[in-house]
C-alpha cells in the first residue's frame, strides 16, 4: 500500500530533510533518470522537468503527517522545508516499498542549488540526443537562465559522478 509515497518519504529521510519544492522535484527526476523505480510522470515545463503527480504526492504525505512542511519567508520569495516525522518513520517500517537508494547521491544533490539541479535535470531530459545537441537544446530552452559554459561543464561532471556511484 502507498509504495510510491513510501519511496518519497525514504528519499526525504535519506537526505535528512530537503529545503525547496523545486529541489525535491529535480532530485526525484534525477533519481528516476538514474534508473531508480520512481513512477511519477514528468513533463517539461518552463523550469525544466516537473511532475504534478509528485507535487500532489508531497501534499499527501504532508497531510497524512508523514512529513512536515514548513513555509519560510525569504527576502522576496517563499521556500518550503521538508522533514520526516516519527509517524513517517513508522510508515517506512511497515512499508514493503523497495528503493535501492544511494544515500550519498541524495546528499550530494541536496547540497546543490535548485538552479544547478534544474540544469542537470534539463540535460538529462534531453539525454536521447548527442552531447553537443543537448548543450545546444539547453541553451535554447533555458535562454533566460543564462547558464555559462562553466555551469554546463560542472553539470556534466556532476552527472558523471552520480552515474558512477
Amino acid at each position: 500500500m502507498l509504495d510510491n509515497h513510501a519511496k518519497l518519504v525514504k528519499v526525504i529521510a535519506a537526505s535528512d530533510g530537503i529545503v525547496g519544492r523545486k529541489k525535491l522535484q529535480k532530485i526525484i527526476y534525477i533519481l528516476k533518470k538514474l534508473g531508480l523505480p520512481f513512477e511519477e510522470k514528468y513533463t517539461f515545463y518552463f523550469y525544466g522537468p516537473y511532475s504534478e503527480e509528485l507535487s500532489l504526492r508531497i501534499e499527501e504525505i504532508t497531510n497524512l503527517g508523514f512529513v512536515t512542511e514548513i513555509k519560510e519567508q525569504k527576502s522576496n520569495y517563499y521556500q518550503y522545508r521538508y522533514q520526516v516525522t516519527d509517524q513517517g518513520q513508522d510508515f517506512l517500517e511497515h512499508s514493503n516499498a523497495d528503493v535501492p537508494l544511494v544515500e550519498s547521491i541524495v546528499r550530494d544533490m541536496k547540497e546543490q542549488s535548485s538552479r544547478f539541479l534544474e540544469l542537470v535535470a534539463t540535460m538529462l531530459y534531453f539525454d536521447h540526443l548527442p552531447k553537443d545537441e543537448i548543450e545546444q537544446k539547453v541553451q535554447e530552452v533555458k535562454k533566460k537562465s543564462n547558464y555559462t559554459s562553466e555551469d554546463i561543464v560542472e553539470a556534466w561532471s556532476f552527472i558523471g559522478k552520480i552515474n558512477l556511484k
Partner: protein
Amino acid sequence: MAYKDDQLHEEKVFKDPVHRYVHVRDLVIWDLIGTKEFQRLRRIKQLGTSFLTFHGAEHSRLNHSLGVYEIVRRILINFEDRPNWNREERILCLCAALLHDLGHGPFSHSFEKVFKLDHEEFTRAIILGDTEVHQVLSKVSKEFPQKVADVINKTYHDKLVVSLISSQIDADRMDYLQRDAYFTGVSYGHFDMERILRVMRPVEDQVVIKESGMHAVEDYIMSRYQMYWQVYFHPVTRSAEVILTKILHRVKELYGQHYQFKVEPTPFISFFEGKVSLEDYIRLDEAVVLYYFQMWAEEDDSILSDLAYRFVNRRLFKYAEFNPNLQMNDWMELYQLFKDIDLDPDYYLVVDSSSDLPYDFYRPGEEEERLPIHLLMPNNELRELSRQSDIVEAISGKKRTDHKLYYPKDLIEKLADDRPEKAKIQKILNKQER
C-alpha cells in the same frame, strides 16, 4: 503560394456544442483533420471511465482537439497586431493545438500506468513517424514536424508559442473545462472565455492577463477546482478506474503465466511484452478494448471474468474513506481477512489516492516549480495572480488530497453469516463507510 499559406476556396465550419462553430480556412489544418491518426481520436473518449458516472460523458478526444484548435485560432486573431507576437508562428500554433492529444490511447491513464507507456511519446512518434500526419506536416517544410513536436513537448525555443497550448491558463484547459461540463451536465466549469481571450496579452515569453480581466480568471480557477472534485475525481469514476487497472494487471499476469485465453488477445500482446510499436498503438482503440472486456467476462479465470463483468455491467466497487496513517492496522487486518476468504487482496482491496489521478490545480509557483498566471498591471508590472486575488489565494491553499479504500461490498455480503471473517471485515469497513 506556399502550402503553409494555402487557403481553402471556402471556409469550412464544424458545428460545435461548446464554441458554436469551429472555423477552418487553412488547407494544412483541413488535411490534418482528414488523416487516419486524427480520425482515430473519435474512438477515444475524452473522459475515459467518467461515462459510468455521468452518462453524457461520451465525447471524444477529436471533439476536444478541434475545440483547442478553435480557441487558439481566436486567440491569434486577437494577437495579430500586438507587439511581441510573431505572426510567422501562426500555423505552427494551430497545428500544435490540433494535434496536442494525438498520442492518447484508450483509457490512457490506466494503460500508461500498467504498461509503463507515455502518450506524449506516442504523440511525438505519430508526428515524426511514418504516418499520414507526418506526410501532411512535411509538406509545410522538412523541419516543420519536429517544430510541432517540440511545441507539444514544451521544448520549443519560443515559450510564448508553447504557453498558448500549455500553461496554467491555456487553450487546452479552457476547452476541456467547458466541454466536460457540457457533456457531463454539471453546472460547474463555466466561465467567461470570451472575456479571457480579450484580455490575454503576449509579453516576452508568456501569455499574461490584463489586470482588468482578473475576475474572469478567478472564475476559471474556481471552475478548475470544482470540476476536479465534482467530475474528474468523482469517487464512482475512481472505482471504475480501479477495476479497469486491475483488469489490465490481471490479463498481463495471466499472459505471463501462459494462460490459454478463449479468444487470443492479439492486439494486447505487444503491450504485455513491453514491445509496443507505433502501428500496434494506433490500432488499439476503445472499441477494441471494450470488445475484449466482453470476451474476458466469459473467461475461466475467476478474477478476470469477475472484474471484466463488473466493468462492462457497471458493478463497481464500493468505497470507504481511509486514512493510511491512522488506519494502518485496519489495512493490515483487512488484507489478511481478504486472504482468509479467498479474495485476492491485490485485486479486491485497493487504496486509491488523489495523486493516482493527478490534476493540475492552480499553483502560484512560489519556488519556480511551474510558471504561474501573471497579471499585467496598469504600470506594466507583472504580478502573480494569487497575490492580487483573495479568491485564488484561498483556493491555492486548500487541502487537495484524499484517499479511499475500494472493495467489492457485494462479495462480502454474499459470505455466509456464520463465517467469522464476515463480521470482522464489515466492522472495519463500516467504521467510515459512505
